[in-house]
């Protein structure tokens, strides 16, 4: 195997990990604070992608792309707020199965909604000109957009870390992760905090959706595809852990990209073998904490 081939495989693995990290971070954040496994997270990803595509089609140039991200974040944050206040809020004290069923119902509702609003046709949009085409990295031809995705994921990771460690909101979220009841007793508005966290998680999925659309397409079914891989990421990394999500995304992305190079038929299986191995070794994931 040549160095070029190795670098190329490494980069494709990283860019795969980038989208996975952005989406799974939201999933993990929501679980950490709310202890809700949100199956509809993939739906937020899909809605974000379709909203993004619509805006990019309407507004030319880099401004359109930035606007697309903003619009997707706002739309999905509103949807997530509705889901949290109307449905999930009533179910926090119920068993987890009910929460799962509620979010699964949302998957079906959003899927039909997207089909109703945007139709059947997959939508593809051009990548923003600044980051389109490819770049020659010492003999390795690689898409600029994929490098852009990797950069965005790193920036978002740092931003999330800062949010969690440097802000009041982050402090409250961390407090909610360890003991929401105590947080309520000391005067924090826990229901509002939960709504904000759920909306923030949804917004991350939406950003992932907008970023993914120019690389592939916005299409029906992308909700299910992403949620399955995202679950693998957070289960490996540990639900609720930001560092774990980053490590999980890297593991899944790189295992996949090198897996198909060496054992093409079994790449996806290898990802899940890694998942099972991690679970056997650490049942709460690499960086997960034991259930409170």
């Amino acid at each position, binding site marked *: 195997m040549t160095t070029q081939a190795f670098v190329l495989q490494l980069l494709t693995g990283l860019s795969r990990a980038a989208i996975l990290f952005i989406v799974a971070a939201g999933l993990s954040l929501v679980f950490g604070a709310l202890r809700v496994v949100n199956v509809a997270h993939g739906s937020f990803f899909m809605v974000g992608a379709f909203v993004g595509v619509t805006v990019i089609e309407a507004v030319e140039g880099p401004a359109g792309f930035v606007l697309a991200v903003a619009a997707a974040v706002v739309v999905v944050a509103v949807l997530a707020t509705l889901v949290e206040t109307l449905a999930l809020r009533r179910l926090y004290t119920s068993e987890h199965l009910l929460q799962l069923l509620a979010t*699964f119902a949302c998957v079906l509702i959003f899927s039909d909604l997207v089909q109703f609003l945007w139709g059947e046709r997959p939508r593809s949009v051009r990548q923003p000109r600044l980051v389109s085409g490819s770049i020659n990295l010492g003999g390795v031809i690689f898409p600029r957009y994929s490098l852009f995705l990797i950069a965005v994921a790193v920036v978002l990771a740092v931003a999330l870390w800062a949010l969690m460690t440097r802000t009041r909101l982050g402090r409250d979220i961390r407090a909610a992760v360890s003991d929401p009841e105590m947080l309520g007793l000391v005067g924090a508005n*826990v229901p509002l905090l939960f709504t904000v966290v759920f909306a923030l998680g949804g917004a991350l999925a939406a950003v992932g959706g907008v970023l993914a659309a120019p690389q592939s397409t916005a299409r029906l079914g992308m909700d299910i595809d992403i949620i399955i891989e995202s679950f693998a990421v957070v289960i490996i990394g540990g639900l609720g852990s930001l560092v774990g999500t980053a490590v999980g995304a890297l593991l899944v992305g790189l295992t996949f990209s090198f897996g198909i190079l060496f054992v093409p038929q079994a790449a996806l299986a290898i990802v899940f073998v890694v998942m099972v191995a991690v679970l056997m070794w650490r049942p709460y994931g690499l960086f997960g904490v034991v259930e409170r």
Partner: protein
Amino acid sequence: MKRRTHTPRPGWPALLLVLAMLAAACGGGGVEGGGDAGPTEGDAGTAGAVTDSPPETQTESTSTGTEPAGTETTGTTTGTETPTGSAAEGEPIKIGMATTLSGSIALFGEANRNAAELAVDQLNEAGGVLGRPVELIVADDQAAPEEGVRIARDLIIDEGVSMLLGPVSSGVALAISEVSAERQVPFIVHTSNTEALTVQEFQPYVVSVVPNTGMEARAQGVDLAGSEYTRWATIAPNYEFGQRQTATFVETLQAEKPDVEIVAQQFPELGESDYQPFITSLLAASPEAVYTPLFAGDLVTFTQQAADLGFFDQVYFTALYETDALQELGDAVDLEGIRAYSRCPFTIDTEQMAAFVETYEAAYGEVPSDWACMAYDAVNLWAEVVEENGDLDADAFVETVEGFEFTSLRGDTHIREIDHQAAVPSYIAELTFDDELGFYVYGETTVVPAEDIWLSEEDVEAARAG
């Protein structure tokens, strides 16, 4: 709001349950994109399981006189509404189409429906069939075999259709074919094309006007054996169709050209959104040429990502670029010189095709896709056979259709007796950009005749026996 501090553990069993539900949703095909539906899916395994429900139950549940859900009547003529200037009179003859109108492959189903509506309108304008108006009833099979069975039965029992058309997915086609045999109603397939329909699972009421999977893959193999390339790689969607199509292609190519070496094979999941690691893996094996049966949205995504990785500069490429995919790609990627194959491109040079393209464009504002052209042929084949017979008898239909010669959009063809497969060719061409249309179309086209690529009668018999 209070939360229990000691919430039960989330528990992986519950998560697994939800993942199982997601998987079930995938299988339904209605809710999501990938699923197991494809225009060429050859999933024979799904057929048997869904036709077990006894027909009596079905009759009971549907004999209440309610319209089957999701069914829409699209015929332009009813008893009261006879088209102007038409000689068609009397009870309309009903024909039914089961195709996919929801989910990610609904695009194909819409083209099927549009073209069949157009064909029926034209028949009615010309005086109907047997002097009676034709009414087309279209129902959504949701790309699910069990749904296909249900609507096929509803169409036959409640609506009394004389013929069935459709569907997109081969899994659905195999299931409907069983209903067609059981109810003795002719069933013409025009989009789904697993070879099993006319070979292993053949039943006398089925007719195919689409080149089947075997014919397609062999056409490719025969065509490309003439090229100078010996180091080949393949990439195919990871399910029965993709694997079988690839195997047939490789077999044919190596039989024609023994020094061909397969240096890499990739099988991404159907509906994969990120082909980059697959593409780079192929390139790592430095093939000279790459073959793929990826189609539709998957092929579009693959093409865009491959272009940015410099793939097309490094290898010779061949794929099923049908009209929808080419329209979607527009001028985004330089496809000049790529060797594409297709089932029924609108650029086929016949008088009939030219007239159809013009009418279709006028009606729907776009050129007809392959899926439209072949559905149009299916309706007209049925009408011609019925006119020839002078009645709607199903067994007479079967008798007449065997060896029947007719003029399709693809030119003169006939239906082979042994497998009811139309002698339709495969079209292979280098792509060239059309400035007027704004997308790539088929340049100088190689027409590989059916006789060169379909199974010989002996092979058909052997396959059925084995």
